[in-house]
């Protein structure tokens, strides 16, 4: 039975590059896929694009392409990625330029566009899951991108593209598309599409299935994390998957690492909603069949909903923050005093805050004070954070923490402050028939 080897070269925008190089060189791959978009990445990229029409794609695109393109061309490995972010066309053009400079004449680079549905949302004054309509959100809205499926990526690959660059494609779709092309799966074979989504789901976070986000010394040991290798999916024509990695790379692939990733960001395992299919992971089986080799079978699928989830990025608010540390005898008492002082100062000086937190890092910042055991820690860091309507107001919060140096309790050290704009994301559902994707292929 025909088998395709797909490597996962990145699990997020800022991910390490060496494991992708290792995969391209030694992975025996047919495809190398880079998944680089989180929920609000496109909104942030759109802000960049507004300032520079030729920008707005992944900041590491050039570094990644320079590192892997020559190897991929040499080893006949095709690349699929969503590094196009808010500007797939510019990302493809930049990739073509890099290919030319590297002497890779004739390399075909495809841009998949059409995920930007902001105009549609405005035309239909769509309601979002935050209870507001697009019109009510006014000029705070930055971007609206639908999670598109595999079809335009399939079209690009069938058109001869060596590199396919998308914007907001669904994460699993950029892995599913090569399988559809290689195995001739039809777009209404829900079982196979469900299995293909399972492949993409397990691989898309890269190191999270090979021992990253997993180690717990003495409980779940993982060797050589500093050289963590990224995963390879060996996918059979019937959709059965073996997860593995390059021999000699760091990390581990076990039933445990695969099971953790199987349920990562899943709600109802029977209904993982994707643009191409409703994937069903509820009867998946996971078996270790050799060292760093785990077989995954039993994925299923049901007909797609016909609607695409759409992420709407908007300027939500501003956040100001300050931190300072205390240590030794009575550290907690001084930390509490510091928090009281800042709380009172923010009121006295009339800082306009709509929501705030007063945390003691090391005591109660993550899960509340009730969890603290075995007495007081030797050191503690306070954290004051508040939401405001302007950057100037946000700065005043960190300022009131910094002034603890000379105005607060004894021996406060390491003050730090920040103020930033918050770009948040709301979502809507758009009928797939309203989304018109397009593929542009350019040659180096």
């Amino acid at each position, binding site marked *: 039975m025909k088998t395709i080897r797909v490597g996962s070269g990145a699990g997020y925008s800022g991910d390490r590059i060496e494991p992708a190089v290792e995969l391209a060189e030694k992975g025996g791959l047919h495809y190398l896929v880079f998944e680089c978009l989180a929920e609000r990445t496109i909104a942030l990229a759109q802000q960049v694009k507004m300032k520079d029409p030729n920008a707005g794609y992944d900041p590491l695109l050039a570094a990644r392409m320079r590192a892997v393109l020559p190897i991929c061309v040499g080893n006949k490995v095709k690349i699929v990625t969503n590094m196009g972010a808010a500007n797939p066309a510019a990302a493809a053009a930049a990739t073509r330029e890099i290919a030319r400079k590297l002497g890779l004449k004739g390399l075909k680079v495809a841009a998949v566009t059409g995920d930007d549905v902001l105009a549609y949302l405005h035309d239909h004054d769509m309601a979002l899951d935050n209870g507001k309509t697009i019109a009510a959100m006014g000029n705070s809205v930055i971007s609206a991108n639908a999670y598109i499926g595999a079809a335009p990526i399939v079209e690009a690959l069938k058109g001869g593209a060596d590199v396919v660059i998308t914007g907001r494609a669904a994460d699993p779709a950029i892995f599913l598309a090569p399988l559809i092309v290689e195995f001739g799966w039809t777009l209404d074979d829900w079982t196979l599409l469900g299995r293909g989504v399972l492949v993409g789901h397990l691989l898309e976070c890269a190191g999270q299935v090979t021992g990253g986000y997993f180690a717990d010394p003495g409980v779940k040991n993982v060797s050589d994390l500093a050289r963590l290798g990224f995963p390879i999916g060996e996918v059979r024509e019937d959709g059965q998957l073996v997860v593995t990695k390059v021999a000699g790379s760091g990390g581990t692939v076990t039933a445990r690492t695969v099971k953790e990733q199987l349920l990562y*960001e899943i709600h109802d395992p029977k209904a993982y909603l994707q643009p191409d299919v409703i994937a069903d992971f509820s009867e998946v089986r996971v078996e270790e069949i050799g060292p760093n080799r785990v077989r995954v079978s039993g994925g299923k699928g049901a007909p797609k909903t016909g609607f695409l989830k759409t992420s709407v990025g908007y300027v939500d608010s501003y956040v100001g923050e300050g931190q300072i540390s205390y240590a030794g005898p009575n550290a907690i008492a001084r930390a509490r005093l510091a928090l009281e002082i800042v709380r009172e100062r923010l009121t006295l000086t009339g800082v306009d805050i709509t929501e705030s937190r007063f945390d003691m890092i090391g005591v109660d910042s993550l899960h509340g004070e009730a969890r603290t055991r075995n007495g007081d820690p030797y050191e503690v860091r306070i954290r004051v954070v508040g939401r405001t309507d302007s950057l100037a107001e946000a700065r005043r919060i960190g300022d009131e923490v910094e002034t603890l140096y000379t105005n607060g309790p004894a021996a406060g050290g390491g003050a730090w402050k920040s103020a930033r704009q918050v770009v948040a994301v709301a979502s809507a559902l758009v009928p797939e028939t309203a989304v018109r994707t397009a593929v542009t292929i350019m040659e180096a």
Partner: protein
Amino acid sequence: MRLQEIAHSRTGDKGNTSNISVIAFDPKDYPLLVEQVTVERVAAHFAAIATGPVRRYELPNVGALNFVIEGALGGGVTRALTLDAHGKSLSSLMLDLEI
């Protein structure tokens, strides 16, 4: 005993909802998870940080439960003021559960 002795866990985030898996190290312990790690116990354990509701999904083939806890991420990953906006550390809170 603490849940950490018989199970491992991973947290994922979507909007203001956290999903937390509870996976038996030994499949033989899966029925114990089903019996002990109930929606009610988990909701009470997370009461200080999550508004709920809590849903539980069972995956006998992999010996795992999947908890979906709404209102767990301080209003949502992209705008929460919490130190751990993604709730990545919530799997550790889950494994702290006494069973």
